[in-house]
């Protein structure tokens, strides 16, 4: 009997495990699969940490694959045992526990780490990121004691964290270095509506604030800004972006720029090594949203399965803020520019703002605030590159109009 080749997966997160799932669909018996995970859990849906923090879901609700599933699919899972070294020459990975597992194919899915702003005091107890279940546990514990939280970063993740902490009864301030919230996804008018709405819910929003220090003796007490202003904090959540987790790959001599560089098949510079998810760089892009990672998983799985006809193509992405009561949708290129045209709807009293970006008779971006029902339709039009010239006048009024 022929022995099956070995596939080792570094990272038990969403990208890695989705790739394994896709692979199992294509070639269920092709590999002997071993998975290493740094966290001591099964695989869970990281996107849903915000609802867990907000108390809307439990950890059990967000588990994707149980240990039984790994067993049933013949996968060896080493949870809580991070890989510390890849020996590409010998094609062996070494885990922290000393375990060494050889591979024929290696899939790196190490994800990313929160960017901890390197200001004085960033290592004080009470300063955390918002990345995994243990971060959520820390926040929930802090919230039980009440008090004040400062979230550094007014992006998607920061606002979800802030909302969760607020829901858990903390006084929360969001500190953002830019002049408008979610500046990656929203234009200033939408950001302004969002700010007003969040403030109404009780969040304190501090824009244009450069954090220069986190102060406190045994643990965090205040956050200090460039202009000398301070805010009190019992908890500081760093949500100022993430950094691809590439130390392991770099150490193994794999070509990295901002992240592990992969080609259209998600293959790294080493033909035996693939990488997917937030740790990869495709062309010039890195990734943080789930939709492109699902695509990567599909392509990588196809190539691992040997039916390598798929190519990974970057697509427009869409985001929604998962804060109950705030309807917000952003898709595609919302900046626009030379040659692009704006379609705008404003209803200040009604709390509705919509902006569609059109270029060459095609919808290229959409920012929706207050009424997001047509978001998926716009997203579809963006992705399908539909010629919208005949419906241009109706576009803002939605599909039903």
């Amino acid at each position: 009997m022929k022995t099956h080749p070995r596939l080792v997966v570094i990272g038990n997160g969403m990208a890695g495990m989705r790739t394994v799932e896709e692979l199992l669909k294509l070639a269920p018996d092709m590999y002997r699969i071993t998975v290493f995970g740094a966290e001591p859990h099964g695989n869970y849906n990281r996107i849903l940490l915000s609802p867990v923090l907000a108390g809307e879901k439990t950890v059990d609700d967000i588990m994707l694959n149980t240990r039984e599933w790994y067993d049933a699919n013949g996968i060896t899972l080493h949870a809580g045992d991070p890989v510390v070294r890849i020996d590409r020459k010998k094609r062996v990975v070494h885990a922290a526990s000393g375990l060494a597992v050889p591979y024929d194919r290696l899939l790196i899915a190490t994800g990313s780490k929160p960017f901890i702003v390197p200001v004085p005091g960033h290592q004080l107890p009470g300063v955390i990121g918002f990345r995994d279940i243990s971060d959520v546990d820390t926040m929930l514990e802090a919230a039980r004691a009440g008090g004040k939280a400062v979230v550094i970063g007014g992006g998607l993740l920061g606002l979800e964290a802030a909302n969760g902490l607020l829901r858990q009864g903390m006084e929360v301030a969001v500190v953002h270095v830019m002049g408008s919230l979610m500046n990656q996804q929203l234009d200033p008018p939408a950001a302004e509506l969002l700010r007003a709405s969040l403030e109404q819910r009780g969040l304190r929003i501090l824009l244009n604030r450069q954090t220069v220090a986190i102060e406190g003796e045994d643990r965090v007490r205040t956050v200090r800004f460039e202009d000398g202003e301070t805010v009190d904090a019992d908890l500081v959540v760093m949500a100022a972006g993430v950094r691809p987790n590439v130390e392991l790959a770099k150490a193994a001599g794999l070509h990295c720029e901002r992240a592990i560089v992969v080609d259209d098949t998600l293959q790294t510079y080493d033909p035996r090594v693939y990488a997917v998810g937030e740790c990869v760089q495709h062309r010039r892009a890195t990734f943080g949203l789930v939709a492109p990672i699902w695509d990567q998983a599909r392509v990588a799985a196809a190539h691992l399965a040997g039916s390598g006809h798929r190519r990974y193509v970057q697509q427009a992405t869409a985001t929604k803020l998962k804060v109950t009561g705030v309807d917000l949708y952003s898709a595609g290129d919302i900046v626009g520019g030379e040659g692009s045209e704006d379609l705008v709807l404003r209803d200040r009293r009604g709390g509705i703002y919509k902006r569609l970006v059109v270029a060459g008779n095609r919808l290229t971006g959409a920012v929706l605030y207050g009424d997001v029902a047509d978001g998926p339709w716009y997203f579809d039009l963006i992705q399908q590159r539909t010629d919208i010239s005949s419906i241009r006048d109706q576009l803002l009024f939605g599909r039903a109009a």
Partner: protein
Amino acid sequence: MKLSAIPTTVKTTCPYCGVGCGVNAQVGQDGAVAIAGDAAHPASQGRLCVKGSALGETLGNRGRLLAPMLREEGTLREASWDEALDKVAAGFARVIAEHGPEAVALYVSGQLLTEDYYVANKFMKGYVGSANIDTNSRLCMSSAVAGHKRAFGEDIVPGCYEDFEQADLIVLVGSNAAWCHPTLYQRIARAKQERPELKIVVVDPRRTATCDIADLHLPVKPGTDVWLFDGLLGHLAAHAADDSFIEGHTTGVADALDAAGKAGSLAEVAKACRLDPRDLERFYDLFSNTERVVTAFTMGVNQSTAGADKVNAIINCHLITGRIGRPGMGPFSLTGQPNAMGGREVGGLANMLAAHMDLDDAAQRAALQEFWGSPHVAAKPGLKAVDLFRAIEDGKVKAVWIMATNPLVSLPDADQARRALEKCELVVASDIVLGTDTNEAAHVLLPALGWGEKDGTVTNSERCISRQRAFLSAPGSARADWDIMCDVARRMGFKGFDFQSAHEIFDEHARLSAWKNGTDGQRRRLFDIGGLSGMTRADYDALDPVQWPVRTPGERTERLFGDGRFAHGDGRARFVPTVPRAPAHLPGGEYPLVLNTGRVRDQWHTMTRTGRSQKLAEHIPEPYIDMHPQDALLCGVKAGELARVTSDWGAVVARVQHGGGIARGSVFMPIHWSGQTASDARVGTVVNPAVDPVSGEPEFKHTPVRIEPFGVTWFGFILSRTELPLREAANWTRVQGKDFVRYELAGRKPFAAAHDWARRLLDVHDDDADWIEVEDKNGGMYRAVHLVDGRIEACLFVAQRTDLPARTWLASMFDKEQLEPADRLSLLAGRAKEPGIDPGPTVCSCFGVGRKTIEIAIRENNLCDAAAVTACTKAGGNCGSCIPEIRSLLAEAQVAEA
């Protein structure tokens, strides 16, 4: 004229067309007026057209002139009646003293009641001593008057409406009765339905709505009616002449046939009229072989430089066959206005005396002067409408008093009329509304009573005298026209103007009609209503509709000339030779198309009354130019867009449309829009001022024009609860809505900062206003809605093209006192959100997939796991947070199946 506490029904007559329908008006306790047809009225037998039915909507004081006003240094101020009337009396007296009686004039209207008209005529011809009193009936009816007088010796419509029901052939010439005389048209349509053998022929360059019931439509080339009827006369001479009638009761047949012969053979006539010779022959044979023929005609015949000849060409055909004065036959002039006929009876035209007496008959002048006891009676004809306004511009007429008409809109070469009034020393206008183009040029404005307030009589097309009765009190300090004129006459020292009521005037008018009528060596006049004189006030108030002559009390006369006796001295009718001739101005060169003008179904004259009704505005809200698609193509204009129509006299702008049934080479525009209702649609400015040499009636139906695109960069509309100043639009039309005003707009200057521009346009200055807008700068689209307290206040829609949303749904939003939140975005879409299928509460928010959508997908496709649901509906395919919910929906579906 008191408002009754108990609703009572007042019988009156409709103030619009010459059919003269009976109206029952009931004033409710809330002041609302309910309008219904009067089944007892012989003219209409209970029918009312849409204009008549909407009379209640046109009442109310909005826009009314409620007090006398004087214009001083360009601004109007209120004045007392004494001050205003002194100014009129002194002004007229001064001009007469300095320049003679020919330097003053009255320009009156077929909207006046007979009693008003009578006083106006007495004032001018008997006391001022000039016949410079003409009327807007000149623009409408005078060719018929001239034709009648030439043929019959008196201005007589021989038949009655019943003839339409008794005829076997009705020929409608130049008449869109379906729109312009709707209840009479309905009578004809019903007769045709009951008796399909009744044949109907429509002679009209346009295929109008009237053609719906026609057996034959003859789309004659505009202005060729004389050819058509001359040809018919020749045909009838050969096939259907009634020699004993011709010999016994007429003169001049030989000359008439001689002249008619100039029209040529049937083929030549067909060519001249641009008709299919087979259709022409069919018409001639039909006419020839049908004894009972009514030939009804109106503006298409009258408004021509050959108008009187057209009328006589028609009458000739009835004389040669002897088909006149008997049931079901005769020529029939349909009058345009409610009281054009009454005006004619009292001599309200510059070339007539009262009671059908003749200006050029010295004995009748003397008789009239004796009856009135007046200082003199005008001995020579006065200036007819077009000439009158020329004389005003030339400075020959220095004071003019205009009553109940809007000549700056309705006259041909209307810009000339404006120049004339601008030069005139004293312009007095009696009117019921303040804002008209003519009133803008007046120095003195006198508030008159309107329909429902005034009291008197009118005469319709079939010589039927009916009472118009008041059922509303006078608004403000408005007074009856006769009362105002009597007051001025007294101030000028004239005797014989001490009337206390319309009843007294009517009595004098009735007595005059019998005065020396066929006695004392005087010519016998058929117009004789001596039988209506001597009535008590109560009798007058209770007067039932009656057709004149009424020589003795209780008499009524349905038809005249049945005895073969006509009003000429010798008792014979005259054949009038009518040599065909072309219209005054022919198309060609710079002006290749011929403009025809006319009415639309739901508007009346210059819209000062019908324009107030939202219901009436809906049929045709905007001025338009109807033309053949091929002509449009050649002119480079497109249906739905704007075109400029230019003649030698002026230019207007209107929206291009097709489908008016017009032949190539001709275009049509409605007459109704004025400077108050549209920026550039006063069609009178384009119409040529050539007039018929006999009747003085202008050629409204034939002006050479050129049409070119009116280039704009945007189209738009506004609905607003308040009137708006529209400085920023190159072209606009105002349309009355129920609780709002609608403006159709077009602009040349592109708008840069749409938000600020729109606020200026809608007159919104509050920065905190509830304002919803959409903007597509590059696409040239902008829409804004202004709300106040959750209610729509105004909206503005602008686009580069004309395909803006329908106005109807938006208009309905003005009825809502409080809009639903869901309505807000629909407002911008301009239409109700389509109900569609309810997707249920959202399950997958990434892809916006609802619970019901998922349930249906599971059921219909027998889906059994979450991945299949995702594949089918996308739900759960992104962040996956809804997969647990999808699983539970799958479980529920399985339970339901089991």
